[in-house]
Structure formats: structure tokens, C-alpha cells
């Protein structure tokens, strides 16, 4: 700085320089001021330009894009929380509860908010009990890859666990406790195939819901009825989902409720099913494989419908774990198969009463006509259709043919009637087509005809094909449900009702009842004396000399019944079927159909015992006990339930 001053001083010393410098200084000063003011003005215009740009930007955001941002702000602010409705109850004919709901706390993880899942679950397990089973189930739910906001790691927390977690909640971001409704089936396995089960909504369910146009109603629902009544009546049971519009803050906490619509509970199903009868049937049936259906003939209402083995539908309500799922799926007993509706079996000798009725109605046989049974039937060639009794039944008329279950009689009858007459007449009882019961997945069975064989095998029907159809074998296949339905139609003297499990649907709001199928859907024209003849013969089946005499002993009411045996493996022409020498699973299936009281039936029953041997020994006693309970209120004495193979009993 001193340097500068010195040079200035030096300039001062020379007058010319001084004058020139002063002029320069003054000129410069003036110029500086002008320059400054110019530049200040320039800045002022920059300021105006920048503020104009800013205001333009504000105009763009606040006016032009206002609607867009308004929507975003509303989306920020308002979240719509679905309120899942109470699922409708399922009640039996005496209003006993078969399915209801209970609320329970679940621990749920929202993966998008949580960090590393494995570590998180390990830490969680220090606070609440988490079993390997829970982990597997959680993985399964995640792997199924739905757009779940959260997946449960634990269900049914105890109060203590809830409290413990609440105290530690801060350690677990993305983990919440939710109160959810769960389905509960108080009777466990009993009637499991009727009720079905609930499962997580999967892709196929979503597609179906979209087709039905009810997808929005399932916002917030994680489970859906899969099979049985839960599946079939899903739309009645589910109810209408309610909504709550809540204002939430940035942390997702609800600040206040803006609007809400209460959910409407699902409708209740009032069944024709009698839970006590069902229970008796299942107890009496024991651990064997098979099916039982009991129908009220005058309405078509199902009184009991059982398929064994069953399953515990409660296993499914909070998502079944893979272990149990494998167990159910891979068991050789196929517990998830509904044998009553999906199992098809040759009807065997239970087919005979319908053949006999056809003979009378179509005039192919008169009651007095009889044959001499040599123990086989032949069409003149070398092939012999053998009677189950090698020596034959002697002289056999229509009545006796049913009582002793003579095969030879029906071989000849079938041959005389021809396949198409059989198809036409017996078909009226429901063989060969679905009964239309209100559970999905029913099989249609098979009642053969010429047309069918041509379609199926591109072959013409040979007269020989007809012979075994007469005794319910050959191409003949029926579900236990079809047998029960045919029996009910017979008991009802030809009046056909569509079988149904649900008798009434009760509106959850008004309590109004809607009845299902109260009207008959068909009428088989039958002469009453013909029906009477068949009934009398079937009553004698349970009398001394009949094939089911054991089951009929001591009955306080008249029972009309018919035993049957369905072959599992073919027996060669010169071989004898020896029950004791073959594998248990290759033994014949035992069948029995019955209705009682014979002259004014209130119950019709069909029983199938897989590999049970003869209908008389294993199936008929079950039907008897079920009818005893239904008609007399008699509790069954529980005995050993294994198949007792009796050599003497024949079919």
C-alpha cells in the first residue's frame, strides 16, 4: 500500500502529470458512477426477469397443473381402508353351528417396510413364539406372490404375546398386530367335505372374482371359500365389504375418519343337514374309507353326507402349512377327495331293484315269471356269466331275485330288455348324470348306451355288453350320491327333487329366509303296485333269507334295502374270488342302499365302504344304525369298526 501512495506522491511532484491524473480521476469517477448506475439498472432488469420467470413457474404449477397436484394431495391425505364383513354362519337343521367366525390377533410383516426378513424373523422369535411351521407358512404366502401389503408370520397370538410385542414394537419396523376374523369349524373333521374350507385367494380365484365383477368387494379379504358349501355359496356367505375413508398423516397414522360405509354381514346358510345324524354316521363308519349319504326323500334335503377319510378344515383357516398340505395331498387315502360326489364305482347289485322296476314297468317280466338258476348265464357260446353263488339259487322269481340278489335272473333280464331300454328307464332315476347337488365338483357317473359306446370307443354295442350291465357291472359307474338320489326317488315313488344341502338362506340384515329347491324337478311315471312289489322285496332283503339279514335283525320299523358289491379287480373265467387271499385294497367295495320306514319313507341312505367286501357285512349295519338314530333317536353302540370278513355272507 505504501508503494501505491509513494507513486501517487511522485505524480504529484510533476504539475503536468498531476493535472492529467486529476482529469483522469475525475473522468474516471464520473464514468464509474455512470457505469455503476448502468450496471445497477441491468441488475434490476435481471431481478424483474427472474421474478417473472418464478411467477410463471408458480402459475404453471398452481393453475395449470392444479388438478394433477390436487389429486396427488388427496391421495396423500386420504386412504381407503376396507372393512371386511362378517362371513355368514352355517347352521344345521336344528340351528347347531357348523361354521362361525372369531376374532384373533395376528402378527403381520409388510416386506416393503421391513428390512432383511430372515434377521427380522429371528429377532421377532425372541419376543413371540415362532415355530418352523410358521416360517414355512410365511414363506409360502410370500412365494405365492400376491400383491399382499402384509403377510402373517404368526396367527392367534395370546394376550401375553400381544402385550410383549407391543412393548417391543419400536424394534420392528414393518411389523404390526392386526385383529382379523377367522373361520372356525367347531366339529372339526365332521362334515368336512360338506362344509369345505377357506383358503388364501389365489390367482385363479382373482380371475373368477373378476369375471363375476365382484373383485372390489374383496378388497381387504385374504381368504375365500374353496370347496364344499364355503366354495359354492361364497357369494352369499362373504357379505359386502365396508369402507372407511380416513385422513392419514405422512406416517400412515389415521387422523380422523371422513366417511365410512359399514360392512354388511354375509348371509347365513341353514342346512337340511342334521349335524347329530352326521356325527353318528361318521362315528359308526369309523376309520374306513368310503361314503354315506342320507336324504329326506320328500324334499331332496341332504340329512347327512360323509366322505371318509375327511380332514380338519380348521387347518386351512389361517393358511395351511406345507407339511400338513403335503400330508393331505399325498396320502394314499386321498382325504381331500369327496368320495360321495367324485368317487365313481360300479353300482353292483344295488342296481337290481331299478332293473326289476324297469322289467315290471316295461312289461318285460311279470311278478310270477321265474327262472331255474344253474349258477350261470350264457348266450349259447362258451362264455358263462357266473352267479355269485356257484351252485345257483334254484327257482327264482322277481321277488326272490332281489332278496337273494340272484345274478342269473338279471343277466337274462338285461339281455331281454336291451341296453337302450335300460338306459332310458334307469336314467330317469339319475344314473349317468349329475344330481345337481349344491356342492361343486360332482362326477357324472356312467350309464352306458349304444350311442355312448359309439362315441367313446367308435364301436358298436354287442349284445354281450348288456349282460353285466344288468347287475350293475360292465360299463356301469355311479357315484354314491347318485345311488342315494336314485334310492330317494324310488322311496318317493318317482317324484324327483334336486338334492340340496342348503335348505334356506337367511338374509343377515332382514332375517328373511329364501328356500332352495322346494319344488320337485321331475316325476318318473311308476305304477304304485310295481313300486310296492319292489319295496316288499327290498324289505325281505333284511329278513331271514335275505342278503342283509344281519343288518335287519330286531328292527322296530320296516326297512327296504339292497346290498351290493363292486368289483375292484377282474376275476378270470375259471378263478374264484377269495377275499382272504388278495390285497386289502383290491378287495371289493361294499354297497348298501335303503329307505325307511318302507311304506312312508322319511330317510333314504346309500353307503359305500371301499374294499369293505360284501355290502351285507360292512355297509348295511352302518345304514341301520344311521336310520335307528334318525327314526328312533337310538344312540349307536360303538364297536370295533374294522371290516369283519364273514365267509357266510353272500351277495
Amino acid at each position, binding site marked *: 500500500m505504501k508503494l*501505491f501512495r509513494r507513486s501517487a506522491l511522485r505524480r504529484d511532484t510533476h504539475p503536468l502529470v498531476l493535472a492529467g491524473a486529476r482529469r*483522469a*480521476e475525475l473522468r*474516471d*469517477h464520473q464514468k*464509474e458512477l455512470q*457505469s*455503476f*448506475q448502468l*450496471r*445497477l439498472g441491468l*441488475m*434490476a432488469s435481471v*431481478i424483474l426477469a*427472474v*421474478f417473472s420467470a*418464478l*411467477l410463471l*413457474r*408458480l*402459475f404453471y*404449477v*398452481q*393453475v395449470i*397443473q*392444479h388438478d*394433477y*397436484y*390436487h389429486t*396427488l*394431495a*388427496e391421495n*396423500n*391425505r386420504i386412504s381407503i381402508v376396507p372393512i371386511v364383513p362378517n362371513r355368514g354362519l352355517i347352521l344345521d337343521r336344528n340351528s347347531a353351528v357348523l361354521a362361525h367366525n372369531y376374532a384373533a390377533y395376528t402378527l403381520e410383516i409388510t416386506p416393503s417396510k421391513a428390512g432383511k426378513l430372515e434377521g427380522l424373523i429371528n429377532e421377532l422369535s425372541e419376543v413371540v413364539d415362532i415355530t418352523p411351521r410358521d416360517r414355512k407358512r410365511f414363506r409360502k404366502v410370500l412365494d405365492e406372490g400376491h400383491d399382499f401389503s402384509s403377510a402373517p408370520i404368526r396367527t392367534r397370538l395370546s394376550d401375553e404375546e400381544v402385550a410383549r410385542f407391543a412393548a417391543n414394537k419400536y424394534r420392528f419396523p414393518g411389523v404390526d398386530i392386526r385383529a382379523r376374523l377367522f373361520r372356525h369349524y367347531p366339529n372339526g373333521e365332521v362334515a368336512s367335505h360338506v362344509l369345505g374350507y377357506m383358503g388364501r385367494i389365489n390367482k385363479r380365484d382373482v380371475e373368477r372374482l373378476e369375471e363375476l365383477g365382484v373383485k372390489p368387494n374383496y378388497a381387504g379379504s385374504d381368504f375365500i371359500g374353496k370347496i364344499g358349501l364355503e366354495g359354492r355359496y361364497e357369494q352369499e356367505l362373504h357379505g359386502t365389504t365396508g369402507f372407511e375413508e380416513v*385422513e*392419514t*398423516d*405422512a*406416517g400412515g397414522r389415521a*387422523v380422523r375418519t371422513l366417511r365410512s360405509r359399514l360392512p354388511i354381514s354375509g348371509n347365513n346358510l341353514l342346512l337340511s343337514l342334521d349335524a347329530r345324524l352326521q356325527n353318528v354316521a361318521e362315528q359308526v363308519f369309523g376309520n374306513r374309507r368310503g361314503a354315506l349319504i342320507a336324504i329326506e326323500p320328500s324334499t331332496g334335503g341332504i340329512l347327512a353326507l360323509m366322505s371318509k377319510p375327511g380332514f380338519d378344515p380348521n387347518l386351512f383357516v389361517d393358511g395351511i402349512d406345507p407339511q400338513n398340505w403335503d400330508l393331505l395331498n399325498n396320502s394314499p387315502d386321498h382325504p381331500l377327495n369327496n368320495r360321495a360326489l367324485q368317487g365313481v364305482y360300479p353300482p353292483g347289485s344295488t342296481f337290481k331293484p331299478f332293473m326289476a322296476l324297469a322289467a315290471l314297468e316295461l312289461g318285460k317280466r311279470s311278478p310270477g315269471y321265474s327262472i331255474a338258476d344253474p349258477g350261470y348265464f350264457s348266450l349259447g357260446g362258451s362264455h358263462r356269466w357266473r352267479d355269485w353263488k356257484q351252485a345257483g339259487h334254484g327257482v327264482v322269481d322277481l321277488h326272490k331275485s332281489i332278496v337273494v340278489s340272484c345274478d342269473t335272473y338279471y343277466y337274462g333280464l338285461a339281455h331281454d330288455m336291451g341296453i337302450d331300454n335300460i338306459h332310458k328307464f334307469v336314467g330317469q332315476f339319475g344314473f349317468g348324470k349329475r344330481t345337481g347337488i349344491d356342492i361343486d365338483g360332482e362326477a357324472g357317473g356312467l350309464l352306458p348306451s349304444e350311442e355312448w359306446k359309439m362315441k367313446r370307443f367308435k364301436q358298436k354295442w354287442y349284445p354281450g355288453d348288456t349282460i353285466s350291465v344288468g347287475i350293475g357291472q360292465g360299463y356301469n359307474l355311479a357315484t354314491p350320491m347318485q345311488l342315494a338320489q336314485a334310492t330317494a326317488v324310488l322311496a318317493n315313488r318317482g317324484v324327483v327333487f334336486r338334492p340340496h344341502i342348503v335348505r334356506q338362506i337367511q338374509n343377515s340384515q332382514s332375517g328373511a329366509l329364501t328356500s332352495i329347491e322346494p319344488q320337485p324337478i321331475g316325476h318318473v311315471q311308476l305304477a304304485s303296485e310295481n313300486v310296492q312289489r319292489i319295496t316288499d322285496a327290498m324289505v325281505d332283503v333284511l329278513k331271514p333269507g335275505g342278503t342283509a339279514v344281519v343288518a335287519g335283525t330286531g328292527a322296530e320299523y320296516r326297512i327296504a334295502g339292497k346290498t351290493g358289491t363292486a368289483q375292484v379287480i377282474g376275476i378270470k373265467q375259471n378263478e374264484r374270488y377269495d377275499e382272504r387271499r388278495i390285497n386289502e385294497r383290491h378287495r371289493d367295495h361294499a354297497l348298501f342302499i335303503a329307505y325307511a320306514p318302507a311304506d312312508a319313507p322319511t330317510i333314504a341312505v346309500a353307503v359305500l365302504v371301499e374294499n369293505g367286501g360284501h355290502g351285507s357285512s360292512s355297509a348295511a349295519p352302518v345304514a341301520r344304525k344311521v336310520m335307528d338314530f334318525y327314526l328312533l333317536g337310538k344312540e349307536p353302540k360303538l364297536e370295533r369298526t374294522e371290516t369283519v370278513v364273514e365267509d357266510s355272507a353272500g351277495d
Partner: protein
Amino acid sequence: MIDRLLVYLGRHVDSYLLAAIGALLVVGLITLYSASGESFVRVGNQAGNIVVALVVMWLAANVPPHYIQRLAMPVYVLGLILLIAVALFGEITNGARRWLDLGVIRIQPSELMKIGVPLALAWYFDRYEAILKLRDFIIGGIMMAVPVLMIAEQPDLGTSLLVAAAGFFVIFLAGLSWKIVVGVGLTALGCLPLLWSLMHDYQRQRVMTLLDPSQDPLGAGYHTIQAAIALGSGGLFGKGWLNGTQAHLDFLPERTTDFIFAVFSEEFGLFGNIILVTLFLFVIGRGLFISFNASTLFTRLLAGAITMTFFTYVVVNMGMVSGVLPVVGVPLPLMSYGGTSLVSILFGLGILMSIQTHKRLVQS
């Protein structure tokens, strides 16, 4: 008695500036009340800050400019010493070394440089009034560059750019050759890629976020998106005082401080914004007027720089909130909650008043 007191108090206060400042402070308190979730504590604290800052302003207004001129270099040198101390002993918070703990108080020396740099440059150019040569600008440039680079090293890019801007305004107004202005401008543009490569990751992130906030809606883009929603949903007339949902439901971050403009915009709409911008423009216009009419080069330059710095704060903040500038921590002058910025802003405006009122006294 009271009249005389008022006259005494008002002697060096510029009534135009005070009116606009008062209006902005009131608007700020009203907005703060809403932004803080109707907290009287917050508003009370800010009112306390305002009282302190107004006293500072009044004191500054009463100091004649030539005293300020004498203090210029000492303030600048003190600032430099503190910056060196920060570099050596500063506390590290969030990866940056910005604060100095003096035991009694923690200070951020870079704040001091916001006024220190223009003061020193104005002093320097005034010292060599009328014979400014290129070397003077070079020396001025170095005086500016040293603190700017030190602050950038902390790192605090936002503040260093603001200090650089304040210095640049002085140099530009002092008459830096247009060739150099244009040349430096072009060079700066050419250096942008270099600057990009020198930037820290979080700084690049901010720029990227500005270009496309939806890239990371819950992370870096969150501020920008939520602010835009607040502005946009406010519309023409706003949602009304205390009715801003973005603010009241916690969607807006930093809503009492850097993003208070978003709260104001949401509740008072475009019309409110026009009034607010007008008030700020009035303060800036008055500042330019004072600068224009200032009697010495020092006061001209200082007044111009203070005004332009004030303008820069307003624009950077509003630009950030409305999504045209990256998110940098610049509060909105006179409105954002916080004592430090309020005191330094009102101190600057007090100097403006001093320049205006002392000139008037000298003339009369």
C-alpha cells in the same frame, strides 16, 4: 415524551424498508403458526428472534457508514481466522466440517463471510476509487476466492456459492470489464463438467433429483415432490390458513424452515404468492434505490451487494421450493424459522438503512 423517543428511535430507520420488512415478518409469523401445527411456543420463539434481530438492525442503522467501513477489514480477517480454525478444529456433522465450538456457543464462520466478503471488497474498491485497474480486480477476486474455496472444502457448496455471489455483485458493480464478465461466465459454463466431477455424491444426487424427482420419490426426491404437491394443490386461492393438508399431515418436510414457502403457497395460493413476491420485490427495489443514491463508492457497492444477496436468497429458496433449483439449505429471508439467518438478514438491511439515513442527514 413518547413522541420524542419514537423520533429518536426512528431517526436512522428507513420507514419504507421497515414497512415492507414488518409486513413480511408478520406474514412469516402467521405462516409459522400454521406450519408448526399451531404451536405458540414456536411462534413465541420466533417472535423473540425477531425482537433480537430488529435490535441488531436498529443498531446497524445507527452506525454511520464510515464506521462500518473501518470495521470491514477486521471483520473479514476475523472471518478468515475462524475459517482456518474450522478447517483445523471444526466439528464434523453429517460428513461436513462447518461448525466451530467455542465452548460457550457454536458458530458457523461461513455465515459471517456472507457479509464479510462484500464488506471487504467494497472497502477495497472504495480505497482505490477511480483508478481501478485490472490488478485491483484480480486482488478483489482473490479476496473473494479464498473464503469461497475454504467454505467449499468444508464442504458447503450452497453457502460457498452464496458468498461467491455476494462477492461477485461487488466486483461487477465496481465496474469489472465486460470482456472479463463474459469471459469468466463462458469459462464457468465450460467448467461445469469439471465441477460435476468434483462434486460429492450427495450434491450430484440433489441435481439429479431436480431433473427427475420421481426417480427416488421416498428418498432424495421426496422434498421436491411433496413441495410441488403443496404448491399445486394450493391452486389460485389456496386452501386457507391452517387448512393446508400437506403441511398439517406432516407430508412437507422442513416446513417451518427451508420449506415454509410451500406452506404459505398451499394455504394462500397463487394470489398470496403474488402479494408475497411483491413485498420481497419492494424490499429489493428499495435496496437498489438506496444503492443508486448512495454517496460513496463503498456505500453504493455495499448497498448493491446486500440487496442482490437478499434477492439471491429469496430466489434460491423459492426456486428450490417450486422445483426449478436443487434442494440447498437456504432459508427464505424474514419468513423461515430460525434466529441466525434472521439476525444476519436484518443486520444487512440495517446497514442499508444506515446508508440511506446517514446520507440524508449529511445532505440536510
